[in-house]
């Protein structure tokens, strides 16, 4: 059916455009999958299907085994995998949920279908704890997977060049090893919630045991639960939301600092957290930027749109698909990818101003994702009042002052009298060791100090005797030493055994935490030999990479082995829970 045939359908003009665009770009595989999906969707949505689901139940049917394997860094893939498990159970499967961090290709449950949900991290890397599995699967000696059925859901961020690289690689490698792809790879940006639900449903449908009375109803997916796009709220395991107000906002850095680090105290009665957990909230865009975007698009008077741009849409991030979409909308030549460097949506709109409709403009925008901040206090220390350490993000590029969306919302715009919802994002992979006598090494420059303040408060509260070593860094000792007096007190009391400091701009040569790590390499090795757990929190782009590279050097230097075995050592440490990262 040529796309033009759709003209005879009951779709509205803009819906038609979307369908046409999708169909014209789809591969045969995708079209095939979509036809099955639509059949399942239609059938499951019918009253008959729903009653069949609820009435017939699945209790008597033998449950088909299913493995749901996830690779997660920040917890999104894990949350999706949990949601998928719920759906799979409902659909009559006997699902097994597996974290890639805890398994190997060789020990995957035999012969069961495989649902893979994998996020991509930073510039195209697998999540750190999944590295070991990933490497083993891509290794030449990986076990064959002939006949095993699979589907991959990939999470990523279009702001990075190697979008969804991990999911892509896993998808390709599983097929290469002989597995049978039952659904094409789905790649998702930040607005993954609805596609994830659709993918789960369709894939489960495709995997459903076929019987002779193969009625679409046996897919047993409760499509009725599918929320509309407007009520998107992340995933099925939506965490409880708490009303919070900001009770204290204190600029920690000196009035002479070249940066701004704020200490925030929130009143969030009832919130119970563990040191290492994060708090999520929905930021609002800078009203001045919203105005600028609206004005440039010729939509300054659309108050509904203004509200939507303020609260729901990402109006800063610019991606390659965004350039393409804008070129299509405005009938202009697509700008080269180099335009992205240091630029945002407003720069694109201003590059060739065009009067847009509200729908045109929003079609360019991704949803505004919630923002996470590591909680900087332990619940024993500030019950019901999580502390946050917020670095104000401000920079200049292409002649324009840019403001971080979430940080400026928290420190400057959000009224302290206005309650706002926050949700707890537990971080089970970034917790203090259960054994309070175990030594810990914490590397947390800048706002990466936050969870370690919570760690130290916890260790103080429980009287833990394990040695603690903190690496902190910032620009200037005098102006940027966050919580200096508290850290001095912990040094004096022994809660903090060692403190290594790196201030980059105090001297002609830049000194960062990785330099202090290297200087202390012999001692670091001793601590690791004593079983120390290594934590890294903070900037993912530069700091975490540099620290990781330095740790590799330290290990290969100490063991006299090559980089490969040092990498293997670190992978084992990740698998053993001795190398934990919370980076952003």
């Amino acid at each position, binding site marked *: 059916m040529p796309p033009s045939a759709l003209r005879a359908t009951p779709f509205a003009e803009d819906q038609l455009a979307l369908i046409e665009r999708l169909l014209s770009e789809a591969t045969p595989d995708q079209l095939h999958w979509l036809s099955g999906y639509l059949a399942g969707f239609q059938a499951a949505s019918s009253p008959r299907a729903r009653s069949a689901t609820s009435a017939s139940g699945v209790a008597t049917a033998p449950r088909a085994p299913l493995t749901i394997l996830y690779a997660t860094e920040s917890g999104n893939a894990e949350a999706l995998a949990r949601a998928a498990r719920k759906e799979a159970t409902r659909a009559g499967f006997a699902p097994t949920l597996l974290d890639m961090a805890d398994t190997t290709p060789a020990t995957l449950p035999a012969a069961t279908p495989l649902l893979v949900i994998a996020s991509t991290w930073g510039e195209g890397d697998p999540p750190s704890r999944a590295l070991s599995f990933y490497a083993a699967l891509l290794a030449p000696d990986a076990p064959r997977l002939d006949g095993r059925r699979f589907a991959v859901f990939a999470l990523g961020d279009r702001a990075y060049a190697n979008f969804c690289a991990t999911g892509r690689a896993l998808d390709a490698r599983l097929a290469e090893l002989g597995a049978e792809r039952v659904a094409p790879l789905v790649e998702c940006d930040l607005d993954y919630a609805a596609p994830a639900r659709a993918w789960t449903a369709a894939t489960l449908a495709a995997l459903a045991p076929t019987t002779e009375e193969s009625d679409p109803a046996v897919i047993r997916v409760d499509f009725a639960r599918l929320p509309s796009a407007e009520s998107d709220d992340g995933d099925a395991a939506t965490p409880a939301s708490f009303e919070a107000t900001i009770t204290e906002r*204190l600029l920690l850095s*000196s009035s002479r600092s070249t940066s701004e680090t704020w200490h925030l105290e929130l009143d969030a009665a009832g919130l119970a957290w563990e040191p290492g957990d994060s708090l999520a909230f929905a930021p609002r865009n800078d009203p001045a930027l919203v105005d600028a975007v609206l004005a440039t698009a010729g939509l300054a008077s659309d108050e509904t749109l203004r509200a939507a741009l303020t609260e729901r849409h990402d109006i800063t991030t610019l991606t390659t698909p965004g350039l393409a979409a804008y070129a299509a909308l405005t009938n202009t030549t697509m700008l080269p990818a180099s335009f992205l460097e240091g630029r945002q949506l407003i720069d694109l709109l201003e590059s060739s101003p065009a009067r847009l409709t509200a729908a045109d403009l929003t079609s360019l925008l991704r949803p505004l994702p919630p923002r996470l901040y590591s909680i900087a206090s332990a619940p024993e220390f500030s019950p019901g009042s999580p502390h946050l350490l917020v670095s104000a993000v401000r920079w200049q590029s292409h002649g324009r002052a840019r403001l971080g969306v979430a940080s400026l919302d928290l420190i400057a715009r959000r009224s302290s009298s206005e309650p706002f919802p926050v949700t707890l994002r537990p971080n089970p992979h970034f917790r203090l060791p259960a054994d309070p006598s175990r030594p810990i090494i914490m590397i947390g420059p800048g706002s990466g100090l936050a969870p370690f303040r919570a760690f130290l408060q916890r260790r103080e509260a429980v009287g833990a005797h394990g040695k603690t070593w903190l690496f902190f860094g910032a620009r200037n*000792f*005098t102006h940027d030493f966050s919580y200096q007096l508290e850290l001095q007190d912990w040094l004096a009391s022994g809660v903090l055994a060692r403190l290594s400091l790196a201030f980059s701009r*105090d001297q002609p040569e830049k000194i960062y935490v990785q330099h202090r790590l290297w200087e202390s390499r012999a001692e670091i090795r001793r601590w690791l030999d004593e079983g120390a757990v290594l934590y890294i929190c903070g900037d993912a782009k530069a700091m975490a990479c540099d620290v990781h590279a330095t740790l590799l050097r330290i290990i290969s230097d100490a063991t006299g082995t090559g980089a490969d075995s040092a990498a293997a050592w670190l992978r084992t440490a990740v698998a053993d829970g001795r190398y934990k990262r919370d980076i952003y």
Partner: protein
Amino acid sequence: MPPLSRNETIKAESRLLRGTIADGLAAAATGAIAEDDAQLTKFHGIYLQDDRDLRPERAKKRMEKAYMFMARLRVPGGVLTPAQWLAMERLARERANGTLRLTTRQTIQLHGVIKSNLRPAIQGIHAGLLDTIAACGDVNRNVIASPIPTSPIHPEVLAAARAISAHLLPKSRAWHEIFIDGTPVTPGEEEEEKILGRTYLPRKFKIALAIPPFNDVDVFAHDLGLVAIEEEGRLAGYDVLAGGGMGMTHGEPDTFPRTGDLIGFCTPDQLLAVAEAVVTIQHDWGDRADRKHARLKYTIERRGLDTFRSELAHRLGLSLAPPRPYNFTRSGDPSGWLDGENGLSHFLLFVENGRIADRPGRALLTGLSAIAAAHDGRFILTPNQNLLIADISFSQRPRIAELLSRHNLEAPPSLLRRNAMACVALPTCGLALAESERYLPTLITALEQTIASLDLASEEITIRMTGCPNGCARPYLAEIGLVGVRPGIYNLYLGGAFDGMRLSKLYRRELTHDGILAALAPLFASYASSRLANERFADFVIRNGVIRPTTSGKNFHEDLLPDLAA
């Protein structure tokens, strides 16, 4: 006997000035060092300070005080090579607050050196063939000498300043050990403080050498003052002055500034022995119980000048010859180009309050770097906090002149400003009670208007300000002295001699900015209308009974106006 002051114990237990300074430098979480160690680092030319502007906000921010160190160089006679200047300028940018501070002791201070930069800064100074040893502390401080290179005896006087400084230097290797090479003295290697002893002096000790007719070193303000006597173009020797000093404490009349007493004449070859003997007398006789009465001036007041003289003769094994005549004309610096012999010329660059920094319209730091890079002569720091670009050859002069003019450094400011001088005070000095360096320029601007309106702009009047009564800018030897009492409030002193030979007298207590202007305006007005020919402002106010003259330190607090006596 009263108990020894706390500092005496610190010194005695310091293992010749080591204390636990090295441990303190290694403690990275704090910008400070232990309190006792902060007394000891002074002997190494290093003060622990903090940025007092930041004090109010620090506690709220969960930060300790904004600690930082001041490092003061030892530069006897104030002579640097251009390469040394460039090295110090680089240290200022890389390890300190980006400025250099020239001081009244003819040296350079680096301010705002945080602890992690202290060793690198001191090592940089050492690499520049300079040091900070004994620039502060209970020792003989930097020896200063008239910087006028046009004098035929300047080379000999400069050499004498260097020789005295070296002779009286602590012999402890602590400075090298702590800041430079980290190598402790090996057992068996003895350091012996033959002159200073292991508790060093009871208090600071200052020596200055003047070359008349210039009293730019304020030779009467030092524990030991030496007036070079030139006879037929040769250095005949020195008149010796003992017991000068500036410091006092508000509200304690038994503390006072004092001009040195003239006690005789020594030949150049007797000079080191005289200096050593005066130092050892003070070592043995000085008050080690009360640091406020520990300077040589109080020792001499207590024991009597005659006793001191005979002890000196006893220790020297000879009596000093009778003093020879000399004549001083001024205590301030000349200004601009000075022509010397051998085709060399010199440029005396006015540096407002000694601060070398780039300011809008006047790129002093940058300009001097350019000059230093081009200059093959010397840089001489003056005791008035100015800078002499010395020994400019005939062929180089156009180049230096061009650089001065390009950086807007050639045009001289008003005479009033050129003869004004302030100590550092806030925000770095821990002793400051009020602003000084940051405020004096504003006050001078206001006074300039009065002076101009009275047609006094061609008169030279010395004005000196300090943020506390300790007197680093020697305010009690100025015609107009302003001494900080509390923020924004100053005591006004008048009558110090233009040539630095007479102390001033308190004229008004606790004046605000407006109060200072109101107090001085009528005096300037009557000076303008009824001064005698060539009469100095200080002499005028005494002749007119505005204040009584101070004839010696002992009567500094006496003969006040009736309403001030309280």
